[in-house]
């Protein structure tokens, strides 16, 4: 819709200028420019914190991981390759792995076995009102393991592509597609088993 309003050429110019700004920011970050660090936090901090919070649910721990993410990002900024992913996706990748590593270090994570159910097209219960379905799905989200909840949130809330999600989680797009279907099916199975 944005493209239709402004025209394709304008959108291309805007994307180009945004990319140039990002490249300048990255160059300044490599030189440890304090103003660049502040801009990085201002532009990407919210998204990074959301990513961390999906996995690390305790507020104090999430803040600690958030700090570690940016320290690590600044240390690794020299290795950032803009051809592989955008800066936002790259930061999300660091945040995702730092958060999972935090859980592992605290021995808080649990290994979840992937369910071997072939029927991926498990349709929701049409008899349930929409509002109730939404409410129950929201409750069912809290029962998902952190990494599954993060993957499905990246798809539906962050509108990330399968390729970007695969980059963040160190996977491949086809696997992410299958995982998303399985997670969705699991959620509907959870809400079906919920007491009315």
């Amino acid at each position, binding site marked *: 819709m944005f493209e239709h309003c402004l025209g394709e050429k304008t959108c291309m110019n805007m994307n180009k200028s945004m990319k140039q700004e990002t490249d300048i920011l990255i160059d300044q970050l490599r030189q*440890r420019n*304090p103003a660049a*660090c*502040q801009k990085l*936090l*201002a532009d990407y*901090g*919210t998204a990074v*914190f*959301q990513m961390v*919070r*999906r996995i690390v649910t305790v*507020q104090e721990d999430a*803040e600690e991981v*958030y*700090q570690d993410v*940016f*320290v690590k990002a*600044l*240390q690794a900024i020299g290795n950032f390759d803009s051809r592989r992913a955008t800066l936002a996706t790259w930061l999300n990748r660091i945040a995702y792995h730092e958060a999972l590593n935090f859980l592992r270090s605290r021995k808080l994570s649990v290994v979840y076995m992937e369910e071997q159910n072939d029927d*991926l*097209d498990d349709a*929701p219960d049409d008899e349930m009102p*929409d509002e109730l*379905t*939404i*409410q129950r*799905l*929201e409750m*069912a*989200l*809290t029962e998902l393991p952190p990494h599954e909840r993060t993957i*499905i*949130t990246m*798809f*539906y*809330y962050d509108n990330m592509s399968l390729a970007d999600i695969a980059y963040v989680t160190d996977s491949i797009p*086809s696997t992410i*597609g*299958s995982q*998303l*279907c399985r997670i*969705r099916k699991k*959620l509907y199975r959870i809400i079906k088993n919920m007491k009315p």
Partner: protein
Amino acid sequence: MNEKDIDRILYGDTHLGEAIRQHEQKQPSLPAHLNGKVMVQLLSAGAHRRHLWFWVGGVAASLLIIIGIGMAMWPTSKPKLQAKITEATVKLPSVQQVEQPQTVIQAEEQHAPSLEEKKPAPMMAKAIPVKPIKKTQNREIPDTLGNEIWQNPENVERALRILADCEATILHEEQEMRNMVIEATFHGTPQPANAVIVTNEMGDYEVIETPNAIDI
């Protein structure tokens, strides 16, 4: 199941999308103070990296210096020496009668020029008595051995050669005899001021000159 089916299933599920959206909106937002804390950490991390390199460089330089000093001070293969500080006029006990004459030294004595004509070295102010020697088997000690023989440089040279073979002529355990011979040799040759004999348990010795008395 192909990608189109996956897209249809996933993108078509508006309930799930809405549920996730509502769930995310209920999550706490980024605390206002947090970015300030992160900035402090980022700036100190950069300084820390610079200081870290200084530390690494300093440690590396120190290691190189220590290795260089260690190599310069690397000891020789000589065994550990024990210094024995001697004075120029040490008095030794008088020699006693011995049974087995030493033929080599006797021969030297016979052919040696008149010892009385030879004047002792400036350091040699007094005659040095020789310590009594215990009777053992295979001992090559002349019965006519006297202090005068050390005034003859040839005798001294001979004694030095004998001393070098002290494993054969003087038993290793008889440290007392060995030291006596060393001292006699020492006093038989002109010595520099503040001379120190350094010996080892094998009987090897050398005379070194030191400005002060030292313990090695």
